[in-house]
């Protein structure tokens, strides 16, 4: 049940029993056929990227519904704001007073955003626990009966040519995965003590190298920000101003473009299994990306408020919107202008020096997941200041799915080496959680005179409501809002997941 191994239930999930309902639900999942095609040609590792993308899409859909219910809905009745500003940004939502202290737009706005954040948190922790449990269980049963896979591997009931091709692919990829893992652990077991010593020295020094690269990158981003800020404060020509305005962003993007490739080379030297290599590259790159995003966001906050803008929230929302769009344009343009021409070149003239120079294209899972995590973090960061961002995110993810599917199926060569998705899946979600925590820190800064919280602080508007409630309710609400309560809530979620999820996990991760 854990591994979709037996071809009999991949193509004909006919087994009855308590899980028949779950399987029926699984068949309703979006893009199921496309995911199967990707898996049969490229293996579970690359399929994991698409599953993750689909998961983020579901999450953004949910966010969009919440935005409509809590934020856009109440504002629709308020016509005054409509003519002045666009509902895309924070400033549009007014703080018009209401007769009920607990039903004002400000409070609904806050509730909407808080519900989005807490739901994301619960869903993520739950999903992570499920993925962790799955990888742990898989680790337990490493001894796989390969004879069974081969001697009773084919499903003779398959008639459709496409289904048969799919099954060939699935069987091949699974066999390769097991054989490569076995060969790796054999090699590992045969290492002598001096060899281990050399390897560990190598790993430690490579890690130090990575750390110094990260430190250098942060220092560079920080100093470019400070430096260009200094230059901007002095009067200068148009081009110089333009240059210094964009210098920090360009530095950040260049570093984010270059360093992950160095990290990939580094982890291939460390002689880990392929799954671990993928995870190590991913970890290192995501730290770089989230941290530089943090520095960037902090910088925008600072300058926006220094400029004394009457509504700095709008400005901030606009920046987040820009980041989402830039990332989107970049991935589409790369597919259209780099991947596609390379492919066409290879098809029309396979022996050209240019075609041979570019080599075989591979779908790099760590880099692509990296972009998804980054994108989701920006979406969360912006949702408070630009409430329609989840809608944009939904559209973006749907489009991205088709572009990436096109890229993988038409432009990339099938991998010779396979890796397991289970342990990576835990890591993807953990990094997403990290992004969520990072973003949660930006909420509740003291607002400007525009928007739903006009003048007063975010907590002020809740205070008005809480003060109108009877005494005991007030104190229990204060307790619920305190930190010590939230942590056990998260802890309580984990055993709940363990008990309830028993066998249905394969479906969730499909």
């Amino acid at each position, binding site marked *: 049940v854990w591994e979709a191994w037996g*071809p009999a239930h991949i193509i004909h999930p006919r087994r009855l029993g308590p899980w028949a309902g779950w399987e029926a639900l699984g068949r309703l999942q979006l893009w199921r056929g496309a995911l199967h095609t990707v898996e049969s040609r490229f293996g579970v590792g690359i399929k994991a990227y698409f599953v993750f993308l689909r998961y983020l899409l579901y999450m953004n859909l949910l966010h969009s519904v919440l935005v409509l219910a809590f934020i856009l809905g109440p504002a629709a009745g308020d016509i005054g704001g409509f003519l002045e500003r666009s509902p895309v940004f924070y400033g549009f939502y007014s703080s018009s007073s209401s007769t009920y202290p607990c039903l004002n737009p400000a409070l609904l706005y806050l509730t909407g955003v808080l519900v989005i954040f807490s739901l994301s948190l619960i869903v993520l922790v739950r999903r992570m626990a499920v993925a962790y449990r799955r990888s742990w269980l898989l680790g337990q049963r490493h001894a796989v*009966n390969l*004879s069974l896979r081969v001697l009773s591997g084919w*499903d003779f009931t398959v008639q459709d040519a496409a289904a048969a091709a799919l099954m*060939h692919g699935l069987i091949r990829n699974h066999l*390769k995965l097991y054989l490569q893992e076995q060969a790796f652990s054999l090699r590992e077991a045969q290492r002598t003590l001096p060899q281990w010593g050399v390897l560990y020295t190598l790993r430690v020094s490579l890690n130090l190298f990575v750390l110094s690269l990260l430190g250098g990158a942060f220092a560079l981003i920080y100093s470019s920000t400070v430096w260009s800020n200094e230059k901007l404060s002095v009067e200068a020509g148009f081009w110089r101003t333009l240059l210094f305005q964009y210098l920090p962003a360009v530095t950040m993007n260049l570093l984010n473009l270059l360093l992950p490739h160095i990290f990939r080379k580094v982890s291939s030297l460390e002689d880990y299994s392929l799954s671990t290599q993928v995870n190590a590259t991913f970890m290192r790159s995501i730290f770089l990306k989230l941290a530089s995003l943090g520095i960037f966001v902090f910088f925008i906050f600072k300058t926006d408020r220094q400029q004394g803008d009457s509504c700095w929230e709008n400005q901030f929302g606009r920046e987040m919107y820009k980041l989402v769009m830039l990332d989107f344009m970049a991935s589409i343009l790369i597919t259209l202008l780099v991947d596609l021409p390379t492919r066409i070149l290879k098809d029309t003239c396979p022996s050209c020096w240019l075609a041979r120079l570019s080599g075989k294209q591979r779908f790099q899972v760590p880099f692509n997941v990296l972009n998804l995590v980054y994108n989701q973090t920006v979406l969360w960061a912006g949702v408070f200041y630009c409430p329609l961002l989840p809608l944009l995110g939904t559209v973006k993810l749907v489009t991205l799915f088709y572009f990436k599917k096109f890229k993988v199926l038409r432009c990339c060569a099938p991998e010779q080496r396979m890796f397991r998705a289970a342990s990576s899946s835990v890591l993807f979600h953990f990094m997403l959680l990290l992004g969520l925590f990072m973003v949660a820190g930006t909420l509740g800064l003291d607002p400007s005179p525009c928007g739903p919280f006009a003048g007063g602080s975010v907590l002020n508007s809740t205070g008005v409501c809480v003060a109108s409630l009877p005494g005991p309710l007030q104190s229990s609400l204060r307790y619920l809002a305190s930190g010590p309560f939230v942590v056990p809530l998260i802890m309580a979620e984990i055993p709940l997941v363990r008990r309830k999820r028993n066998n249905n996990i394969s479906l969730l991760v499909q």
Partner: protein
Amino acid sequence: MGATASHLGKDLLSEYQELTFLTKQEILLAHKRFTELLSREDKNLPDPRAPTEAILTLPELKSNPFRERIVRVFSTSESRDGLTFEDFLDLLSAFSDSATLEIKSHYAFRIFDFDDDGTLDENDLEKLVNCLTGETDETRLTPDEMKQLISNILEESDIDKDGTVNLSEFQHVISRSPDFVSSFKIVL
């Protein structure tokens, strides 16, 4: 037992019913499908034989990587080529819903025994794996992977350590597969 090409006698029908795992409807359908595979001249022969090429075009076999082996195993002719109606019934009986694990695993063993020497040696296993993964160079396992896989299989299944998998060793492995009986099936 000359079955005339156009219709099946009542006695013959009940005899076939006794000897196979097939129902009356299944036998009649098999007869109809078999007759369609015959050329016009062959239909008038007493015990006609459908050529291998015609049988391989059946949609039930067309995508099966073992289709040529299946025809060879069930053919009773000298050259192991083509099936008579009774051969065809044998085939459908072994692949039917009601055939036992013992019968199914016996025929599976014969299908996978590519050189017909009564045991699965390294060459048979290699051909079997190539059938599973796809025959083209791009889809095959690398020679190292193939070697590793075959040594794995022999280590797990070759109980008497003679370097091959014999019928009883094969049946021992198959008996642990929950899906074998439901997937070793071809129904018209």
